[in-house]
């Protein structure tokens, strides 16, 4: 089966996030108040051919840890979005 998987990569807790901080500082000027803890990250989407959901997620997690993220500074979370008809 073909699964549609989203991998989100965010900076680990305690790692400085200058992008998130800059975005947060810009918001009040645009009239958006009450927004805090803005974090910048990356999102990757892909189709994964696998036996079942678990196998697809396992593959996504493995490739996210090996390539999409740097475990020294980033966390990666893979989730199933929807099943794509291939």
């Amino acid at each position, binding site marked *: 089966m073909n699964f549609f998987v989203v991998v989100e990569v965010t*900076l680990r807790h305690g*790692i*400085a996030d*200058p*992008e998130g901080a*800059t975005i947060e500082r810009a918001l009040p000027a645009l009239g958006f108040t009450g927004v805090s803890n803005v974090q910048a990250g990356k999102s990757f989407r892909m189709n994964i051919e696998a036996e079942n959901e678990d196998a697809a997620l396992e593959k996504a997690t493995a490739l996210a840890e090996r*390539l*999409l993220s*740097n475990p*020294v*500074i980033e966390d990666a979370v893979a989730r199933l979005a929807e099943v794509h008809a291939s």
Partner: protein
Amino acid sequence: MTRVAVVVFPGSNCEYDALAGVTSLGAQAELVWHTTKDLAGFDGVILPGGFAHGDYLRPGALARFSPIMDAVARFADEGGAVLGICNGFQVLTEAGLLPGALQKNAGLKFLCRPTALEVTSTDSVLTSRASLGQELVIPINHFSGAYVCDDETFERLQARGQVILRYRENPNGSRGDIAGLANERGNVVGLMPHPERAMSTLLGSADGRVLLESFVGVRERVTS
């Protein structure tokens, strides 16, 4: 005569400066394309600055999978002298040949200017001919140069004298003002400043010479 390989990835852009830098000191050097799998016959390897593989994903993230990196890892393991400058430093951390990582500059600005550095260890292939506490003015030229590592790594780096260069005034938010570091044996070194751009007082500074002189002076494998 020392033979130095300067690795060229698609997107490298400081390879000729590095080549000119070490050859001006009497070393023999050649450019080596990143698909090469053999580094036999070389005394030292330089991973130059630039944007290897476009810096896509993260600086160094894709370069670490270039075919030559297995040879670089073997060369380092055998005690060969390996130097990563700027993007090369980022590649070495991504490849796990040096600990930690390089994150976007704290001020989110691309920084291109001379910086004052302090030599904090002479126990490496890059600083063996410098003196402890010596000040060197060498330019930086990067967007992702803030050195990051966990507490345990940081303590270990300091305890073992692996921090070889520190910024006098921290330009980018690097932990512990770290500008350059070495592995435990001192044969693998990485730094964000560009010593190859500080080879002549006519062009602003010749302080990079002592670093590259140290590097090209290495003719044997580092064993301990």
